[in-house]
């Protein structure tokens, strides 16, 4: 789409674009190119010799049981962090969309967790689920469930999923509520006349919400992949025994802690492919929304 009326200046637009482009080139394109470049190089441990190894780094990673373990953790983690907030948020949104009093109060009281940083959310959950001093952690031990997320991998994974999901419900709730409010009242009323509530929901409302659901699915997966680093870093440090090491966490440990430049870069490149796929999916959704 183009405007008909434009300004004739030939130099000014370049000046206007310059700051954004400079940052983009220096901090986006150059590092991304470097990541791709390093991903096909092998460096000896002292950084003295580098050798061009084609796709050797990728072969090493994709056959490394530790990497595959991290893929598995990421799949479980992001499936849970995508589904859990969405389910809870949909329930709240459907409840709040009925014509009840105080909808705005509920909306306010349910949306603030969005503003809590993932790492801060982690510290709050840690304080509740700490095996010795946390109110729930200690209670679990008192009733005979051996709760210690620092030793038990499944418990650790459960805890990071809960802390990460808690924060994400608000976002899903606001979008579902907006989606529900966009459905014309007449459709809702006509539907509720000939069918029960449950049937109305599954046969009328849910299909109308499906583009929104798909959109939130992508957003939640992106969140689970990239924005939950703080939750994991604060709660479990990827442990115990790598039980909560997601792909992004592994890029960080391999690159920053273990200084494995080639391996970490190859992992970055794989993640870039994931992001490109997710972004493309997201834009297909937007295209559909425009056609409506």
């Amino acid at each position, binding site marked *: *789409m183009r*405007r008909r009326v*434009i*300004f004739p*200046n*030939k130099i*000014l*637009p370049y000046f206007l*674009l310059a*700051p954004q*482009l400079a940052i983009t080139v220096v*901090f*986006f*394109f150059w*590092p*991304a190119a470097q*990541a791709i470049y390093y991903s096909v190089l092998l460096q000896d441990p002292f950084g003295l010799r580098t050798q061009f190894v084609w796709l050797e780094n990728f072969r090493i990673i994709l056959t490394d049981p530790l990497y595959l373990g991290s893929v598995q953790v990421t799949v479980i983690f992001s499936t849970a962090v995508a589904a859990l907030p969405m389910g*809870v948020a949909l329930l*709240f949104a459907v*409840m*709040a969309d*009925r014509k009840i*009093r105080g909808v705005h109060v*509920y909306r*306010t*009281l*349910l949306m603030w*967790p*969005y*503003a809590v*940083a993932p*790492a*801060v959310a982690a*510290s*709050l*959950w*840690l*304080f*509740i689920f700490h095996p*010795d*001093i946390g*109110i729930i952690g200690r209670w679990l031990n008192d009733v005979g469930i051996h709760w210690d997320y620092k030793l038990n991998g499944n418990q650790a994974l459960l805890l990071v999923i809960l802390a990460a999901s*808690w924060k994400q419900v608000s976002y899903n709730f*606001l979008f579902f509520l907006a989606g529900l409010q966009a459905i014309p009242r007449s459709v809702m*009323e006509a539907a*509720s006349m000939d069918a029960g509530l449950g049937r109305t929901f599954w046969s009328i409302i849910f299909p109308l919400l499906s583009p929104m659901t798909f*959109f939130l699915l992508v*957003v939640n997966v992106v969140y689970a*992949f*990239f924005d939950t*680093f*703080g939750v994991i*870093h*604060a709660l479990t440090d990827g442990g115990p025994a790598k039980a909560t090491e997601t792909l992004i966490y592994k890029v*960080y440990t391999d690159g*920053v802690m273990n200084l494995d*430049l080639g391996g970490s*870069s190859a992992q*970055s490149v794989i993640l870039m492919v994931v*992001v490109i796929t997710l972004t493309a999916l997201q834009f297909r959704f937007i295209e559909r929304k425009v056609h409506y």
Partner: protein
Amino acid sequence: MARPRRRESWLPHFILCLGVVVFAFPIYFALIGSTHDAATIATGRMPLLPGGHTLDNYWHALTSGTGFRVSGSPVRTLLLNSLVMALIIAVGKIAISIISAYAVAFFSFPGRMFFFWMIFVTLMLPVEVRIIPTYKVVTDLGMINTYAGLTVPLIASATATLLFRQVFLTIPDELAEAAKIDGAGAIRFFWQIVLPLSRTNIAALFVILFIYGWNQYLWPLLITTSRSMETIIIGIVKMIGTSEAQTDWNLIMATAILAMLPPVAVVIFLQHWFVKGLIETEK
């Protein structure tokens, strides 16, 4: 239905109240934790009602940030760092995005679409996937432990540019035509027409970006090696350390409350802008 439904069902209220309580639960305990002393918490039998150490804890956290077992910078330093970072990111992103969107929407010049796509594809390169090389660039530029290093690499924004371009496309051609006839140049048109017309979008975007900047984690973790440059979010996680039972949980919880207060206040008090910003940035 034949008769209007006046009686409200209790079920939605029950479910929503339950939700509100479950959501507030972690915050309630953090608040309670920040009012007791470390020894009370370490017994594992923390009372469920506030204790008498509130002022002590917050004063101690703000002025020293160091307890018996945790050592850190005073939280007021960390709060200031977070505030500076969030403000530079929010204002910077809006400023450079609005002018680049203006260039793309109101001018015709060689390479226009190429530059637009260049900005657009940065959506696909979040900082997390290019951690190491970006970190290297920042080190080479000597930007470690500086506000510039914390903020500039995060300031480019495809989302904000797309949003402003969208807004500019709705400005009627007649308006630009009239301005041109009246002798207004591109810069004057920007200041007197375009900027005032976009102010609601700027406000909404500012709220979202402020929260985004405040809550950054991975990037400040890499860029700040000096403790006095840390943001408050990094500060808390460093305080927690290995999360022993015998640590200054009272200070940690007071810090956590202080860390979430500004963004939560922004969401609650600027609710209207927040919701608008959230919905718009995803278009």
